[in-house]
């Protein structure tokens, strides 16, 4: 509508400027702490930079008072990988099941939505109390993983609904007409076509778990995950080491996001090239 035949209306420029400001608002503060993480050894929590150094990154490893960064980092990565795998398998399978209308589908759907919007700390409190009443100890890989799944699974399900909403079922019908068994159809038609969406679910499963705090706080047991360790640091560490761990953890997130987006783009490009037609 808006002047498709040429010049932009003035509102475009107003909106573009507004959008640019929003992006600055989103990224600006983050960029600042990445810069400040290279603060010199005598530098403080804000500008000016007193020299440039890797001192604060080194402090993460060498100074014991900043906490158990290496251990919590390993736990968080392990947890995120586990959460991503479980989320992909369970939510993809469940979303395929939801394509049919069946009795109880509304119940299952609203259970997932309720699980998504319930305040995370309440879920954690409930799990901690349940484990306590059952006489079980809480650990990051049992109660912690379960707590995170109440958050990553509904997300995975909603993403799969969006992916399946634009999935053309005639490809599946064609496979059946050509004599494919339902297993062949799933393995050779449905899953390959859904692969970009599935990678998206894995990305969300990983990063949502990797950064989760509210559900994990009461369920991780005695060993902290990385976000919990950082949360503890916000009250005890008043040096740029806090920014250094922020920079490190964000780099990990960016690598994961980058790998996921690039693999989706590669898959899409191959498909377009193979058929000349977008699927």
């Amino acid at each position, binding site marked *: 509508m808006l002047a498709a035949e040429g010049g932009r209306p003035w*509102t475009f420029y107003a*909106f*573009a400027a*507004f*959008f640019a400001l929003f*992006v600055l608002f*989103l990224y600006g*503060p*983050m960029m600042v702490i990445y810069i*400040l993480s290279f603060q010199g050894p005598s530098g403080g*929590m*804000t500008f000016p930079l007193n020299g440039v150094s890797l001192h604060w990154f080194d402090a993460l490893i060498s100074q014991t008072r900043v906490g158990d960064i290496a251990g919590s980092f390993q736990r968080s990565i392990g947890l995120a990988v586990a959460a991503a795998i*479980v989320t992909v398998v*369970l939510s993809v*399978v*469940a979303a*395929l*099941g*939801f*394509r*049919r*209308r*069946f009795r109880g*589908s509304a119940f*299952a*759907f609203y*259970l997932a939505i309720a699980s998504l*919007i*319930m*305040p995370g*700390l*309440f879920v954690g409190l409930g*799990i901690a*109390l*349940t484990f*306590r009443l059952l006489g079980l100890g809480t650990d990051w890989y049992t109660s912690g993983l*379960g*707590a995170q799944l*109440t958050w990553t699974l*509904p997300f995975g399900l909603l993403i799969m*609904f969006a992916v*399946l*909403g*634009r999935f053309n*079922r005639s490809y599946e019908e064609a496979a059946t007409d050509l004599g494919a068994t339902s297993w062949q159809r799933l393995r050779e038609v449905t899953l390959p076509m859904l692969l970009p969406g599935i990678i998206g679910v894995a*990305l*969300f499963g990983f990063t949502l778990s*990797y*950064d989760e*705090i*509210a559900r994990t706080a009461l369920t991780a047991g005695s060993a902290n995950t990385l*976000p919990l360790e*950082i949360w503890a640091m916000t009250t005890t560490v008043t040096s740029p080491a806090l920014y250094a761990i*922020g920079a490190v953890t*964000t780099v990990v*997130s960016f690598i994961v*996001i980058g790998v996921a987006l690039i693999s*989706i783009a590669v898959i*899409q490009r191959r498909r377009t090239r193979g058929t000349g037609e*977008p699927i």
Partner: protein
Amino acid sequence: MAILDQTADESAATPGAGAEHIAVDAGGERASWFQITPLVVVLALFFGLPMLVVLAVSFFDFDRTDIVPAFILDNYVDLFRSEVTLRLYTSSIKFALIVWLVTLVLGFNIAYFLVFHVRTVLWQIALFLLCTVPFLTSNIIRMISWIPFLGRNGIFNQALMGSGVVDQPLEFLLFSDFAVIVAYVHLFTLFMVVPIFNSMARIDKSLLEAAHDAGASRFRAVAEIVLPLSKSGIALGSIFVVTLVMGDSFVVRTMSGGQSASVVSALQNEVAALQYPPAAASAVIMVIIVTLMVAGILRLVDVRKELAR
């Protein structure tokens, strides 16, 4: 770029096409249940059951070291008698309202820009990702990244003093309600952008052309076409933002420097003091209030077509 074309197609295609037209048959129903059972079991064990436990524990008694199974109403009575309760709810609801308003205005305009002003789908996807990527990084890090900005000697104050706008650093920027709201808006605006973007993307652009041809101003077209047609997205985004703010304790603790509290941050203190039954009672009341708020939003707007599969 097939994914991009698909996104473009989606706005034109009928939403949720294909899925629902399969006839219900007993075998299919069994297969569906088989497929969703693992997910339902996990959610029942780690969400359904724990929530029932919270409800049960809210009636328990407790002593200094342990919870004692009982059926007493003392936890609720104490909660309603305490003056602190009302103050905490006022504080939480105030934050929720302000953040809701700000994220709504931001989210609506950003979604509108992306859907109606950005012309190529490639740019649309790129700018959409630009908004989404921070969401996939740590909330805590994004929150503390405001500290060098808002502090007494922070960048904002340095800039204000440098340009001569103020000669004393502003004290209210960090560790205040202001800082809490800035952090909430920073963290949660995306939850408003995405649902509104989705519902706007489904609006038939020819409607706007028709309005334009009929002489409607741009503003009127937005008010009478875009706004009503993106209502379900707005409702969904509002549910996300309101529940996120009401359920938060970490942001309010850090960014207010302990000066402000929310219902959930007070609850967290009770948990730290091992007072589980009062914490559980507080959680139950909070869930009821948040459910009422969500139900209110759903009453105003039917979001089912947004969630329709």
